[in-house]
């Protein structure tokens, strides 16, 4: 009888201490989920830091990860190339949340095609929508802790607001005529529009590779795009151009040489930094990107 009682108690303790499992496609979404979920959720990211979501191909290990999930989260807007996250979840019965639901997407033209830019997180206001979607999703799975998720959500949303204010203050150090942001691929449209970069390009990214590093329509690099970027860099007098942590830097370095400008530094784009790096969280990633951009474009490059 004592043994039975002990077994019952152990079972009850295990049940109350079991964490919910959230499996996220990207590192950014995983960070948002950790901020909201607290200790009630174990959050996993399929993509490792530095991995490219546009070209990623899932593995059997990813399938096992999804099978163990209570909830799956993806960016959507075709960030996950060939819908790899939706395909992983399909048929498993696991709920899949699209974190960009409700984001007013930027529509950009590529080679005559209208594409919705998936890199919405580069505007903290859009990141706030991601967070709201995650709060809602966690609350639907775990109704006991709704107030906790909302409380954490409120705190993190105010941190995002503080981040936005800080970015505006930092960017104001760059003369408007010098706010020309050239990167490896068109990941920074939302950032450019929010903070006033590239006015001559309609406040959109300037990059040799389109919105995706993969082969989707409007993505990739063409000789025409490459030439346009080089001409723009020269004619608008960009002080520096930037490589990205998740994209091969070879192309952008070649363009820098041809255009006669320096490389201003490395930016986190499709992925945050590895654990222990300054960019291992969303706020850290944005902070470091802004510091790199502002330092290079106001003319005081760090050695």
């Amino acid at each position, binding site marked *: 009888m004592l043994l039975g009682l002990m077994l019952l108690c152990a079972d009850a303790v295990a049940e109350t201490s079991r964490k919910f499992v959230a499996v996220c496609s990207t590192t950014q979404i995983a960070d948002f989920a950790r901020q909201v979920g607290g200790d009630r959720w174990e959050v996993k990211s399929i993509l490792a830091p530095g991995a490219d979501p546009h070209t990623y191909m899932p593995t059997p290990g990813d399938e096992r990860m999804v099978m163990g999930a209570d909830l799956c989260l993806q960016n959507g807007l075709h960030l996950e190339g060939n819908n790899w996250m939706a395909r992983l979840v399909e048929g498993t019965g696991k709920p899949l949340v699209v974190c960009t639901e409700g984001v007013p997407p930027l529509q950009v033209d590529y080679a005559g095609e209208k594409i919705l830019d998936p890199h919405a997180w580069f505007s903290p206001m859009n990141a706030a929508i991601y967070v709201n979607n995650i709060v809602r999703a966690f609350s639907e799975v775990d109704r006991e802790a709704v107030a906790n998720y909302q409380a954490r959500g409120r705190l993190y949303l105010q941190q995002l607001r503080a981040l936005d*204010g800080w970015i505006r203050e930092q960017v104001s150090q760059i003369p408007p005529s010098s706010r020309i942001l050239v990167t490896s691929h068109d990941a920074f449209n939302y950032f450019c529009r929010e903070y006033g970069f590239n006015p001559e390009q309609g406040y959109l990214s300037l990059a040799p590779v389109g919105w995706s590093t993969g082969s989707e329509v409007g993505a990739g690099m063409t000789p025409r795009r490459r030439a346009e970027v080089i001409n723009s860099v020269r004619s608008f007098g960009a002080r520096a151009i930037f490589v990205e942590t998740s994209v091969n830097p070879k192309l952008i370095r070649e363009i820098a040489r041809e255009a006669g400008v320096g490389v201003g530094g490395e930016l986190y784009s499709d992925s945050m930094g590895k654990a222990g790096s300054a960019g291992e969280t969303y706020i850290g990633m944005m902070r470091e990107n802004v510091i790199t951009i502002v330092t290079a474009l106001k003319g005081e490059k760090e050695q």
Partner: protein
Amino acid sequence: MRIIFALAIWAIVLSGLFLYMEARSNRSSTDSAPATGKLETAGPYALEITILTTLQPDPFALTTGSGNQAESIHVRVNGRSVLSRTERIEAGTALRIEPVPGLLSGVNEIYLGASPPLDEHGRPAAIRLRLFNGLVPVVDETLWSDGGSKISGTISFSLPGIEGLRDMP
């Protein structure tokens, strides 16, 4: 006989544990109830809120869940919500709440949160709160923020009881 005695002991222990947990649960729900020892105070109080900066719905608000929305301004008196707006409010607007629900004799607290436009960084933003008893301002405070960040603050003050009101001019 021994077995029956052991089972009886177990039954007593488990019953005691159950009663203790029930009592603890009841006590915590009682503890979380708001203190209502003070009487709501009478008096022709009015709260005037003068918006000295443009306000807009907070784009970083929690909007998920019942009752949550992107507010431009929110005011609570002693924990009770007395004002919530979700529209843009132009600088210079004066909002008036009369009578003011929830005021107590003794110590009171007014919380205000408001959302200036994000692109007004570097420009201070302010909201003035005045609590009037008739025509006499009994509280007059201004809450500030650096432009762009939320205006947010709590004002604590005391109000007299009924006898004190009779003595006031």
